[in-house]
């Protein structure tokens, strides 16, 4: 039963993540007054990538990609999707956050094993900016977990039951802003896309990937996006009463992310760290201390 459920939810996440990417391309095109590719273009691209022959740079190059996708799928199973629990009763927020790090480690290992300095620089940037955005995000979560006396995502969702005014977005408005900003960092959206930076470091970690490796990474990114936006929806937008509402909320959040990302230009990597450790950090502390002292209504 668990196996079947996990396969189903993985397929859902992949399909929806790819849809979000196609959606992103369409919106971006409209913002730039282009017509843009059809919304299902991402599916075609991914299938095409898997069908192509390609090169490998060694065992860790293969292993890391598998580890990246595997870790992301494992994380997905611990996250509530609407009213679909899978395993989210037996994981907690820290398990989810740190399991995602396994995926990042796998991808980093694989990319650096390609022995291309562009990839190494890309990974360096990805890790550096992770030090930037993760901290304010975790500070907000400390306040949230302390106030609701639980670190289980399922219970944190349950604590927001009873309508819009109980959503953490309303209860912790500053925290929601911080979480939204750090989510852009997690997704590598525009002002924080230093590690991709096609014009500077030839797409960074991706530089040596092609064929099914690239396909695996796109699938990984799809699932990762689903998990990260899903976490935001669960923690700040009250989750979803059913899967449909959950997916709609994910789409809405991503839509705003794409719009914001499209009108901003890229930071340098140390600017990303400095930015996150300045305003989001201050807001995160204000929000967390506020809610820890005052509590929820």
């Amino acid at each position, binding site marked *: 039963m668990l196996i079947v459920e996990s*396969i189903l939810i*993985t397929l859902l996440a992949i399909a929806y993540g790819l849809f979000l990417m196609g959606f992103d391309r369409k919106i971006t095109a409209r913002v730039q007054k282009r017509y843009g590719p059809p919304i299902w273009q991402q599916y075609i691209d991914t299938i095409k990538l*898997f069908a192509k*022959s*390609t*090169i*490998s*740079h060694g*065992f*860790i190059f*293969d292993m890391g*990609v*598998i*580890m990246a*996708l*595997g*870790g992301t799928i*494992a*994380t997905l199973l*611990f996250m509530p999707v609407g009213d679909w629990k899978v*395993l989210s009763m037996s*994981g*907690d927020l820290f*398990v989810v956050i*740190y*399991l995602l790090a396994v995926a990042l*480690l796998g991808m*980093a*290992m694989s990319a*650096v094993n*390609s*022995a*291309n*300095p562009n990839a*190494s*620089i890309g*990974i360096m*940037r990805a*890790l*550096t900016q*992770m*030090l930037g955005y*993760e*901290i304010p995000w*975790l*500070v907000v979560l*400390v*306040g949230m977990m302390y106030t609701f*006396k*639980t*670190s*289980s995502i399922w219970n944190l969702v349950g604590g927001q039951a009873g309508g819009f005014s109980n959503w953490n977005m309303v209860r912790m408005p500053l925290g929601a802003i911080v979480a939204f900003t750090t989510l852009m960092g997690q997704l590598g959206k525009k002002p924080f896309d230093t590690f991709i930076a096609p014009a500077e470091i*030839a797409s960074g970690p991706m530089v*040596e990937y092609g*064929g*099914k*490796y690239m396909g695996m990474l796109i699938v990984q990114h799809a699932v990762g996006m689903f998990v990260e936006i899903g976490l935001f929806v669960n923690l700040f937008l009250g989750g979803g009463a059913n899967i449909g509402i959950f997916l709609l909320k994910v789409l809405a959040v991503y839509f705003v992310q794409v719009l914001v990302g499209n009108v901003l230009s890229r930071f340098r990597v*140390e600017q990303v*760290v400095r930015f996150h450790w300045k305003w989001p950090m201050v807001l995160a502390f204000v929000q967390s*201390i506020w809610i820890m002292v005052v509590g929820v209504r």
Partner: protein
Amino acid sequence: MLNLLVLLPLLGVLLSRMISTFSEPLARWWSVLVLGVNTVIIASLYGNWGSAVLLGQVIPSTANRPAIHLALEINPLNWIFALVATVILLAVALFSIRGMSDLENGGKNLKTYHVLSLLLSTSVYGFFLSENLLTLFVFWEFMTWVSFFMVSMGKPRSRSAAMVFVTMSALGAATFLGAVAIIYRLAGTLSISGLSTALYRQPAGVGYGIMGLLLFSALVKSGTFPLHTWLRKTHGHAPNVFSPVLSGLLTKFGVFLGAIVFLLFPVMKWSPQLFSLMGISSFNYLFAALGAVSILVGTFLAIRQEDAKMLVAYSSVSHAGYILLGLAISSSLGVAGSLLHVMNHALSSAAMFLSMAAVYHVAGTTKMSQLGGLVDKMPVTFATYLIAIISTAGIPPMGGFVSKWLLYQALIEKGMIFLATAAFIGSIGSFLYVFTPLAAVFLGQRPKALEHAKEVPVVMQIPMVVLSLFTILLGVLPSIALRWINGAIRWIDPQASWLTPIPITLSKIQGAFGAWDSVLVFFVFGLGVVFAGILFYLFRKNRRVGYLENYTAGEVPVEVIQSPELYHYSYQFYKPLTDMYAKFPSMEEAYEKGIAGNIARLAAATAHIFYNGSVRWSVFLALAGTMIVLGVR
């Protein structure tokens, strides 16, 4: 049985010297044998709590004071430390059978090394199993002096490193001995398990004074901010096989002393008299804050190291911070997290240092910018390092995550948001610094000089593999270790007045705010990897190419083909980040310029009074001095 633990290595020292005159390699196996027997003894002692043995009398009893003995005792708390110690010692001894390439100039050093390492083992067993504070102090000093000689055996300039080590240790020893004297004077007994009752009637001021003195020396030995400065020099110069012992084990001397102070003193009686901060006394908060600063300092300094050994050395500063943080919070979760972190950090840092020693064995350096691409040549070493860093960075499914999870729960339970932030920075930051050696040493382009590198001999691989297996075991089934720790918690506080055992089942761990299932997480991670693997192997096979078949923007740079290391990004890996804090003041410089410099200047000024270049003045002073002395008589 118990006295064998100390006597066996001590007698082993004599035999070792004799054996090594016949055959030096046999002496290496001899060390392994002695430590192996000791490991079996320690494992078999589990459950024999309270059994004690006398080694000798120091102070005879008088009418109003009981005698002070050198004595050993086993209890659930020190058994955990002793077990960790013996596993690390044994692993390193096995590794040393082939892994001492940096000491092998003539073989004379090696004979001394065997003698010293067995002496060191004696002090380790004696220390962790001490019955009273005096025994503790004797073995503490014993360890300091033996390791002084071991550190100075390393590279040519290691004598100055050893001096720094011994000076700071001497400061710590002074406060330690002072505290022991005060306790004996006040309480009339030094027994560790009886400290709580013996000191119960002392006023809080005296109590916290004694604790402060003891914690000062604990901070020195555990390498915690602001007394961590000896670690860098010492590790940079110590022999490669000594570093894992130093970091995995000898820093735990300080931790053990800290555990005694925070857990076995009647703190709960004294703490109401201090004002409290976030639910713990301000004294404890001060040390928790020191732990937090230690995490930050260790992390940021480790990020900018160029030598893999120094990097791991600074990571131990950061991890000593986590351990101190948990002990100072003194809640059930904090204490359990700390004790578990002692085990996890000992295993992972020993494994990291051993893999770096293996790299040194093969490549002759641990400077990261001179290495690269060793993964194909040294797969076992790579796997050891990888598993160790997953644990160090606190990522499931390895042991380090479990202890950090308990510490996070402890911090959030108390609502300590600033300390928690430091803990998070340390955890994300550790991901950064442990990745540098992975990328620079094992992955990337391989220098031409390492083209014929080979994996280290099997006898060196065994300890690395075993330590990795333990790390995985503690990640999948942490309940094994947590059961021991719960035993220790029950022994520390039988009434469960301030410490209660962590609720665990075989696979589930319950924190303050949530629970998780370690076996399930491991299983689900495996499931995810299987899914990904199926997707990967379902599709077309790929062609394996060399490292130099790379995207180079369409150019074929000749120099890259001639020396591939030019195409390896490894020097100053995190430059954009480290530039941000390059100008921060350094504690080490502050000590060297501030304290050491001023002492030197004072000494020079004093010398100048007596001798300022003119002989006449000196003779005059001497004569005048003599006359005054005579006149006074």
